[in-house]
């Protein structure tokens, strides 16, 4: 009995999960460039619906000038541009639906971080 109580204190009930499947945009599975999908949800356009953000590894060269000083001798193409896809929710709060994505913009270009 004491053992069971101790377990309850340290292992609280969490919701069991069931795999629903892979998210789609239109009829296609969302499959990011060079993988390493990193999802997040936030209302990006203020319509009260949560939108889907997905980070990706990317395959374009990351500009060496934006790297720290210690990495300025890096060769072009050594690092890639990891970008953030924004899929606006075209459905409802209970049935989100996504179509095309746009990359998050920052400073007049695609927002990016270095990947390798």
């Amino acid at each position, binding site marked *: 009995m004491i053992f069971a109580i101790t377990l309850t*204190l*340290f*292992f*609280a*009930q*969490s*919701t*069991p*999960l*069931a*795999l*629903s*499947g*892979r*998210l789609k945009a239109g009829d296609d*599975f*969302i*499959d*990011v*460039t*060079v*993988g*390493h*999908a*990193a*999802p*997040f*949800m936030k209302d*990006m356009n203020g319509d009260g619906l*949560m939108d*889907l953000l*997905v*980070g*990706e*590894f990317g395959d374009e060269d990351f500009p060496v000038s*934006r*790297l*720290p000083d*210690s*990495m300025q001798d890096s060769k072009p193409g050594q*690092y890639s541009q*990891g970008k*953030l896809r924004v899929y606006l929710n075209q459905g409802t*709060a*209970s*049935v*989100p639906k996504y179509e095309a994505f746009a990359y*998050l*913009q*920052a*400073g007049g*270009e695609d*927002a*990016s*971080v*270095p*990947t*390798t």
Partner: protein
Amino acid sequence: MDYDADGDEDILSGSYTGEVYYFEATAPGVWKQGVYLRNMDGNVLNVGISLTPEAHDMDADGDLDLLIGTRSDGVFVFENRGTRSLPQWSADGIPLKTSPGDELEGSNAHLADWDGDGKLDIVAGSEWGGAHWYQNVGKAGQFVFAASQELVARGKFMERTEEDGPVGPGSRTKVHAMDYNADGKMDLLVGDVQWLEYQLQPLTAKEKAEKQAFKPKYKAAEATYDQAVDERNSHVGKPGGIPEEVLQRYQNANDVFAPFRRQWSGYKRSRTNTHGWVWLYLGE
């Protein structure tokens, strides 16, 4: 989150190279290109490779700290020694541990109230796949973590083809917890990377003959390269590290071997596609 308390939402991102990139909002929904953060000593804030940050007041002192998950080096808190509007990051991160004493692990460490008790827990992905969580068993405003509990089992590694398709999340999982379908239950998004194999057309007779003729030259170049690798590795972990001349010999051997390696791999008939999917788990 509002990094500098000026009323608009900024963005923080990790990177593979280990820096935290800050995208400052200049107006709601308008951001500057990302720049890497420095710590209070003026050095680049860096705690490992492939990291993910979240900003939250971890020590209940009224400003935002950084919670950072890393690919395989643990989960760290960088304390804000400045103010709410002008963060100054500690030079060293504090590795988080559970109350039993184990270091937290997570290729991303995501704050969410997973059990609905009003306190933020940590939900984490893993380099090796799956997802787990650390229940916050501290008092309000404190972070005391219980031992890791599995949410999504790690899949067994197996080579799969494009034709087979995936069966579940792969590696380097990144998670996000929320009520996805507004049914009042916590759900989980799991992003991944995984590689599926496909086959090229078989080599022609001419290509097979070319490969056979090339093989002795490839093996000779590989043996020379392997010697340089062994010499380099023999210095790893020893006082003084790897001597500069040894590193140079390794680099020279690698430069000579690279075209041989490229040509040899061109004869392989199997290739892989890299995928990154987002898997939805719904709370039952």
